[in-house]
């Protein structure tokens, strides 16, 4: 359930009284209702499900955990190359 894809908000508009936006997903642009992410700014990433943006992606959180993993990868690579050097 709940296919939801991250995309970047590129424009905000108003339709039938609802806050709507254009979300860029790898170059494809879909329209999404922004009523549930009222504070979103153009340029931010959001998760889109069934035509609704549900959450502004927490870029700091994402960067943080990705950094941990990348450090692990780096450490592992160093270890491996160290092993190979031995």
């Amino acid at each position, binding site marked *: *359930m*709940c*296919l939801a*894809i991250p*995309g970047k908000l590129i424009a905000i508009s108003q339709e039938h009284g609802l806050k709507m936006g*254009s979300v860029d*997903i*790898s*170059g*494809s*642009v*879909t*329209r999404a209702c922004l009523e549930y992410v009222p504070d979103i700014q153009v340029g931010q990433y959001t998760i*889109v*499900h*069934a*035509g609704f943006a549900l959450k502004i992606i927490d870029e700091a959180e994402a960067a943080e955990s990705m950094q941990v993993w990348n450090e692990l990868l780096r450490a592992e690579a160093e270890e491996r190359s160290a092993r190979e050097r031995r």
Partner: protein
Amino acid sequence: MQFECPLPQADHDRVQIAHGAGGRLSRELMATVFMPALNNPMLAELDDQARLILPPGRVAFTTDTYVITPLFFPGGNIGELAVHGTVNDLAVGGAVPRFLSAGFVLEEGFPLADLQLIVSSLGQAAAKAGVSVVTGDTKVVQKGQCDGVFINTSGIGEIREGIDVSCRHLQPGDRLILSGTLADHGIAVLCAREGLSMQMSVESDSASLNAMISAVLEVFPGIHAMRDPTRGGAAATLNELASASGVGIVLEEEAIPVHPEVRGACELLGIDPLTVANEGKVIIAVPSNGADAVLDALRRDVHGKNAAVIGEAVGDHPGVVVMRTAYGSRRVVEMPLGEQLPRIC
């Protein structure tokens, strides 16, 4: 007492039932819309059949009916599509496409201006592909009994000497080459449908590939199989090849070219690009010693610049297409069930 009257005032900007009734309006339509766009001496004879001179040898014959919503889509329209599809079906059989027929079904009330666009686009596509539309037919059905325009084209091509491609000739070890990005046509058309509010800059790949395929056959005549992955997408085509030839196929997921925008749309819509229709792509099965030559020849053509080896035929699991993921796991690529619909779940 030739007929020289003005066009009907009543509704001369829309298709009328009488346009298909074989009388004066039928003739008018022929004279004003079809002949100028498809002009060639054989069609001009207006007999019930065209007479062709074919060199002795084997002849390829194919047919397809084109039904598409919307009729005009990013990157093309039903008119040129009707040429591309049939030209490609001939070309993938190793034939040189020569002659087309064109059978139109028109809906009463269809704007004549749109018809004119479609027919002239069909004519231009035929000219570009080097084929002549030599015989045709037009029927008009009542409003609501067809969806604007349906077009059938049948095609005749000359089969080259010494070429023997068939979907039954795939052999273990053959490299499978795809001439470019997958799913452009199907996704562009889906996004152009009313309601689905998707915008993409990617257009349908709709194109005639006969020139490119000629170039490929020239550099490597020993191709085993060729097929254009249209309806059902690459998944259907690869399953057909595997099943007709009784061999297995292993694809490399990372090698399959998909345009980033199309990939984005597919992720959003929950659609597998492997199952989406293409109208300007070919899958070529070639013995491994020909793979580089074929790849080079493809990449020299504008329609093949993203060509890639996407997998190979294997002796294992005959009839089954298997995808190897980037992680080394494997999954079966099934024959698609039916229409691909956007999902939310």
